[in-house]
C-alpha cells in the first residue's frame, strides 16, 4: 500500500472520531410535588450541530425517547416506561413540528423555537420512590435506513444523555 493510500485509509477510519460530537444532556430533573402521577420535569440541553440539524432541516424525522428505570443496590431493571417525541419539518407550512405521544402537535416557525420546546418537554410520569433513573436518547433504529450506519459510527449522532439518577 502506497503512502498516500495508507494516509487516506487511516483518515477514513478515524474521520467519525474526529468530527464534532452532538450533545444531548439532562441538565435538571425535578419531581413535581403536586402531580398525582409522580410527574418529573426534565430539563435538557440539546445541541444538534452538524448532521442532525441538517437532517432535520431536510425532512428527516428525529425520534427521541425518554426512558426511566429503577435500580436497587446496583441491580437495574429493564426500563419501566418511556415517552416518544418526534421533531420534524413541514415544508408546506414551513414550520418545525414537535410531536408528543400524549400531546397535540406543536408547530414552530424556527428551529431554535423547536429546540427550546425540546429542552423543556412535558413532565413524564415517573412513579414515586427511590432509585429511579432517567435518560433521553435519539432512536437510531427509527432513523431512515441509509442514515443508521453513519449514525452508529459518527459521533455527531451520539445523542444520548446516559442514565441520570432522579434526586
Amino acid at each position, binding site marked *: 500500500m502506497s503512502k498516500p493510500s495508507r494516509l487516506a485509509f487511516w483518515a477514513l477510519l478515524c474521520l467519525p472520531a474526529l468530527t464534532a460530537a452532538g450533545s444531548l444532556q439532562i441538565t435538571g430533573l425535578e419531581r413535581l410535588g403536586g402531580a398525582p402521577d409522580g410527574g418529573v420535569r426534565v430539563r435538557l440541553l440539546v445541541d444538534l450541530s452538524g448532521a442532525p440539524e*441538517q*437532517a432535520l432541516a*431536510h*425532512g*428527516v424525522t428525529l425520534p427521541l425517547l425518554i426512558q426511566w428505570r429503577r435500580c436497587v443496590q446496583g441491580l437495574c431493571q429493564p426500563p419501566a416506561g418511556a415517552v416518544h417525541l418526534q421533531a420534524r*419539518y*413541514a*415544508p*408546506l*407550512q*414551513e*414550520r418545525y413540528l414537535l410531536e408528543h405521544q400524549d400531546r*397535540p402537535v*406543536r*408547530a*414552530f*416557525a424556527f428551529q431554535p*423555537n423547536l429546540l427550546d420546546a425540546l429542552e423543556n418537554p412535558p413532565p413524564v410520569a415517573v412513579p414515586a420512590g427511590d432509585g429511579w433513573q432517567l435518560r433521553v436518547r435519539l432512536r*437510531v*433504529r427509527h432513523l*431512515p*435506513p*441509509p*442514515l*443508521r*450506519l*453513519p*449514525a*452508529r459510527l459518527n459521533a455527531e449522532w451520539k445523542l444520548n444523555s446516559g442514565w441520570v439518577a432522579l434526586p
Partner: protein
Amino acid sequence: MKRSLGRRLLVLLPWLAALWLGVLALLLDGSGTAFAPSIDPAAPAVMISAALALLILLLASAARVLQLRRAATRKEAGARLSWRLIRHMLWVALPPLLLLYAASMKFVHSSIEGWFQPDVAEALDNALQVAQRSVQLAQARRRGQLQPWMAQLDLNDRTQVADLLDQAIDELDALELTVFGSDRRVIASVSADPRYLLPLYPELPPNGLVGGDGLAVLESATGGQVNLLVVPLSGQRDAPLLQARFAFDTQLGELTRRLEAQTLAYTRLSFLRNALRYTLSAVLSFVLLVSALGTLFLAFALARRLSTPIRDLAAATEAVAEGDLAVQLPVAGDDELSALARSFNRMTNRLAEADTRVKRTQEALESERAFLATVIERISSGVITFDGDLHLLVCNGAAQELLEVDLSTVIGQTTAQLGVALPSLQPLTAAIDSGYASAAQEWRQEIALSESRRLLLRATRLPDDAGLVAVFEDQNEASRQQRESAWGEVARRLAHEIKNPLTPIQLAAERLRHRYLSRLGPEDGQVLDRATNTIVAQVDALKSMVNAFSDYSRAPRLDLKAQPLEPIVLDVVELYRGEQRMQIDVDLPELPPIRVDSGRLRQLLHNLLKNASEAAEDSAALRVRIDAEAIAEGSRSFMELRIADNGPGIADNVRERLFEPYVTSKAKGSGLGLAIVKRIVEEHGGQIRAENGADGGAVFRLRLPL
C-alpha cells in the same frame, strides 16, 4: 474427548464465521429499499457479530499463512506447492474482485447521483410554492370573509357574540368559530360538528406566533384538511382573537397533502444520498473484505486439497528413495492425481516384488555361498580363490594350515603383493601367476615350499577369465594317505585270510593235547603240552593281531549321539584304576554335549592310555593327565581333548609317521593302536596331533567338532 471436541470447534469456527459473513454479505442492505429479506447493517448485533466473524476469519487466515510460511521455510513436502497455488489463486481471484468492487462503487455513486435532477427539485419546489400560494389564497379569502363579522362583534355582550357567531358559521360555511378575550379565555364558540352538543374549545396556538396579521395554518383533520385562521380583533398586542376553522377543498387538500409528502420525501432522499453512498460503500467494502478473506480461506482449503496428494506423493517418493517399498498412497476419486497415485502404488508393488525376488536370490546366493564356504572350510585340502586380476578372495582354514601363514590379513592383495608380504608363499604365487598367464584351463603342479614340505597344486581357471580356484594338498599327507589306504587293504585281507584258519588250528591243537597227553609218557607229554600250549597262545596272539587289523580296516558304522564327554572318559579311566604304577588325573570342565559314537570313543581312549602305559613300561610312576576345553575358530567350534603323560615322549624317528600302522618305538603292541586312534578321530570329522610336552612326555591333542 473434550480436547477433540474443542479442536473440532476450533477447526469449525472459521468456517462458521465465513458462512455467517457470507449470509451477511448476501442479505445486508443499507438502503431500506430492498424487496427481498434483508439485514440492517446498523443493527448492533449485526455489527458486533460481523466484527467478531471478521476477526476470527482474519486470525484463522493469518494463522494459516504463518503455518504455511513456517512449513515452507522448513522445506516440508508440499508447502511450497501450496504457497504457489494460493498465490496463483489469489492472483486469479482478486483482480476481478477489485474490478467488480470499483465498478460497483462507481455504479452506486453515479446511479445515486442520477436519481436527483435539478429540474425535478425545482419542479417540486415550484409545485410546493403553488400549493402554498393556493392555501394562502384560500386563507386570505376566508380572512376577507371574516372581516365584516369581526367588525360587528361586541365583546362586552357574550350573547351578541354567540348569536353573531351562529349566523356567521352558517353563512361562511365554517367548521368552528371561537372568540378569545385579551386574557385568552373563550368568550364564545360555535361548532358545525353535530356530534358535539357543546363546542370543543380549540387549543390556541402559542402567543408568540400570533402577529399583527394573525396566523393561518393548514391542519390535518379527520376527513380532510382544515384551514385554521387566528385573527386579532384589533391592532393591540394582547388584542382579542377570532379563531376560525374552515374545511379546505377536499380535492385540493388531498393534492396538497400528497405534494407535501412527495416533496418532503424527495428532499429527504436528496439529503440522504451521501449517507446512502456511505452506507452502500461500507456494505460493498464489507462484501469485498469478506470475499477477499473468503477467497484466501478457500484458497488455503483448495491448496491443501490439491497439494495433499502431491505432498503424499513427495513423501512416499522420499520413503521409496529411503528404501521403504511398502508405502502406499491413498486413492480417492477418478482424476489424474488418483491415476497417478494408482500408478505409484503399482510401481511400488512391483518394486517391492522385485526387491523381494532380489532379496530371495541374494539369500539363496548367500546360503549357497555359506554352504560353499562351509564345504571349502571343512575339506582337508587347501583352497584359495583369486579374481581376474589375481586378488586373493577366499581361503580356507586348511590352506592356512598347509601354508602355515595367516591369510586373513592379506585378503584382497594380489599374488605379487602376497609374495612380498609372505615370502614363504612365493613358490605358490609364482606357480599361480605362471599358470594363469598361460592359456591352460586346468593345471597341476608340485610346489616345494621347503625341503620337507611339498604341495600338490591343482588350479582351474574360472569362465570368462573371472579368476581361478587353486586347490592344494600336502604331498607328504597324500603319500601318507596312500600308505594308509594300502595298509587298510592289507589289514582287510589279512583279517579275512588269516582269521578263518586260526580257530581250527587252535581247536586241532587242543584236541591233540586232549587225546594224546594222557597216552604219552611224562617226557613226551611235557613236550606235547608245551607244544600245544605254544600253538594255542600264538593263535590267541594271532587272533588279537587279526582283530586289530579287522578294527583298522573296518568301515565306519558310527552310532553318533549327543552326549557328555565326562562319563565316557571316566568309564575308560576306571579300567586302569587297578594299575599301581599308573596314575590318571581327569580334569574336565563343564562342556557342551558332543556327538560321538561312545563305543568308538572308548576304544580311542583305551588305545591312547594303553599306548602310554606300554610306552612307559619301565617307569614305576606313570602319570597321565586328561583335560579338555571348547575352542572356537571362526565359524567352527571344537572340543579339544588332551592326553598327556610323563613317559619317554615321541621319538624323533617316528614322529612324522606316528599314526601309520606298524610305526612304533615300543617293544610290545601290534603297531595299529595309534593308527586306529587316528582312524576313529577322522571318522568323527576331527583331527589328532601328537607332540612332546614342554616337561617331557607325549601330548595327544584331539579336536572333535561340536
